[in-house]
């Protein structure tokens, strides 16, 4: 769950990380008044709130010297398309006057299994370029999760980067770390971390990515998640606790399975045969017939999909439940779409019996994944 900038800034403030004062704009009416009543002084920066990199270069960040200019920018940017995404909100802050721009982030590092601090004195938009050309200018320091931020971690950053001691650096690191841990962040990034003319540290822009699996205990973030525009099928699937993954726009085949490894293997085989997968749906483990019915209905409601390949190797998921769900879904549908089904594992025999009882004859059973993919291929050729 990636937070939009204004939400990330809001979270930073809650954890006493200094940010620029800002205001969210979601209407083109009386922009000047909104800015004035938020206590912002010109010049201001108006930034499109979309989850995409390179937003500045694409024209999503603009400067206004007065209310008139701000009005003009908002009318142009708000509700426009930026790199294929609709801009539903703008965030405006006073223009900063940075003396120095640094990069600071904490990410969850799968190699060390620890929070990893990444710091560079060469911050700003081109941090990825720095990573390529001057990798030694980027410091990486794992934090022992038992100890948290220690003196020696701060000392290492100060001496190794050559930025010199700063009265607030330790506090900032501690606050960012606290936020990282308490909000179950995968990434908490401040870029740039600005040292302004009066010597204060400010988080000018930030990215926060929160573990979806932890949203159940982060009600505020979960509420925010609901406000983001999502593919309606992804949304519908997630309401039933399924993962719907759009793949290729022109794909006419959908793949459904109980587990992402199996999904990926099936997709690999289908692509190798020259066919196109439009969507995949991961049922997860232990789905009941009622839920499978919804899964089939959701996938087949995508108009571009005319064939569905279901591969189930039942462990925690039982084959008869899956077959029963497919039966319920297909018998409730007016349009007949092709379903190729491969079931193996727990309660397979019972599952095959259910499949045989489905009326209409659009369901075919396959005894292995390659055989199922072959069946898709033969039907595609027709």
């Amino acid at each position, binding site marked *: 769950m990636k937070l939009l900038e204004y939400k990330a800034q809001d979270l930073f403030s809650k954890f006493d990380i200094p940010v620029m004062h800002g205001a969210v704009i979601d209407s083109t009416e009386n922009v000047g008044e909104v800015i004035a009543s938020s206590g912002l002084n010109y010049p201001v920066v108006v930034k499109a709130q979309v989850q995409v990199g390179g937003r500045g270069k694409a024209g999503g960040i603009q400067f206004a010297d007065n209310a008139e200019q701000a009005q003009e920018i908002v009318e142009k940017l708000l509700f426009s398309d930026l790199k294929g995404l609709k801009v539903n909100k703008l965030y405006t802050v006073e223009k900063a006057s940075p003396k120095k721009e640094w990069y600071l982030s904490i990410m*969850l590092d*799968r*190699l060390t*299994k*620890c*929070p990893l601090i990444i710091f560079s004195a060469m911050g700003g938009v081109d941090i990825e370029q720095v990573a390529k050309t001057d990798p030694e200018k980027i410091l990486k320091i794992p934090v022992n*999760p*038992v100890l948290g931020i220690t003196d020696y971690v701060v000392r290492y950053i100060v001496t190794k980067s050559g930025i010199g001691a700063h009265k607030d650096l330790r506090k900032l690191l501690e606050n960012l770390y606290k936020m990282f*841990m308490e909000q*179950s962040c*995968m990434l908490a990034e401040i870029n740039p971390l600005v040292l302004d003319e009066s010597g204060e540290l400010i988080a000018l822009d930030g990215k926060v990515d929160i*573990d*979806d*699996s*932890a949203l*159940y*205990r982060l009600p505020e973030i979960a509420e925010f998640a609901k406000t983001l525009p999502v593919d309606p099928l992804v949304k519908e699937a997630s309401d039933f606790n399924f*993962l719907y*993954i759009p*793949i*290729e726009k022109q794909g006419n085949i959908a793949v459904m399975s*109980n*587990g*992402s*490894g*199996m*999904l*990926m*293997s099936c*997709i*690999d*085989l289908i*692509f*190798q045969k020259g066919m196109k997968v439009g969507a*995949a749906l*991961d049922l*997860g*483990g*232990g789905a009941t017939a009622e839920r499978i019915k919804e899964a089939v209905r959701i996938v087949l409601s995508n108009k571009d999909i005319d064939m569905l390949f279901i591969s189930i*190797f*039942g*462990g*925690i998921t039982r084959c008869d439940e899956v077959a029963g769900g497919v039966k319920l879904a297909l018998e409730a549908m007016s349009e007949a779409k092709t379903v190729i089904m491969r079931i*193996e*594992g*727990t309660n397979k025999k019972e599952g095959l019996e259910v499949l045989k009882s489905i009326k209409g004859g659009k369901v075919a059973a396959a005894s*292995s*994944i*390659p055989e199922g993919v072959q069946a898709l291929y033969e039907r595609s050729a027709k």
Partner: protein
Amino acid sequence: MSIIVNKDTKLIVQGITGREGAFHTEQMIQYGTNVVAGVTPGKGGQTKLGVPVFDTVREAMDETGANTSVIFVPAKFTPAGVHEAIDAGVQTVITIAEHVPVHDMMTCYHLAKMKGVRLFGPNSFGIISPGQSMAGFMPHGIFSSGSVGILSRSATCYETVFMMSNAGLGQSTCIGVGGDMIPGSAFVDLLDDFEQDEDTKAIVLIGEIGGSEEELAAQFIKDNVTKPVVAGIAGKTAPKGTSMGHAGAIVSADGTGSAENKEKVLKAEGVYIAQSTVHIVEILKELNV
């Protein structure tokens, strides 16, 4: 002898009275697993499927001398279950649930390391040593006893096992390391067990895109593994930057964690690379294990 789970395994099922816990406990008992205790808070003193139920893992340990625990509780309660098992002195802890917060697993991982506990999962089907014992929810009917050790990041390995068994290629032990970002045990933590195990003649790694488990395994194999290793990597055609459901299976835009890279480094250390499940079986047949 097989590894981790075998005929000496004395198993606790945490969450034995739940829907999934009960269903799969019955399967495990039918398979011949020595399930000695169940744990469900508030249900101590009852029995389930003939197994005594305790309120805490510590009581279950004291009464039964169990050495392994499998945790069949929802993701929300899984971290607490792992903490309890580790603190009660269980040597091997296997977690099943998917969607356990990664931060919680980070804590579990370090706790297990500190106590020298072998932790498996989450998002794992468990561990089975065919003909001896199973701790998890795999469809045990497809397994057969033999000499191939399997480590898998996903349940894709059911396919492989099914075809192997049909081809007369049995398994010594099959372990689901799980598909999450921080697995309790990774490939690299288990290769030496198979190398030392007399019953294992060849090792199959079923990997997938994302992370560096396969790359680390390649490094380890180079210096420590003499037995033949066959690897298959799922997700070659997965779109970049898209999470395919496993928290771990994400390829970053620069190609880190890609199937190509994993195959390249494994191949360089003499690992046989399989392009499909069928291919894994073909290679094993040629190896004549």
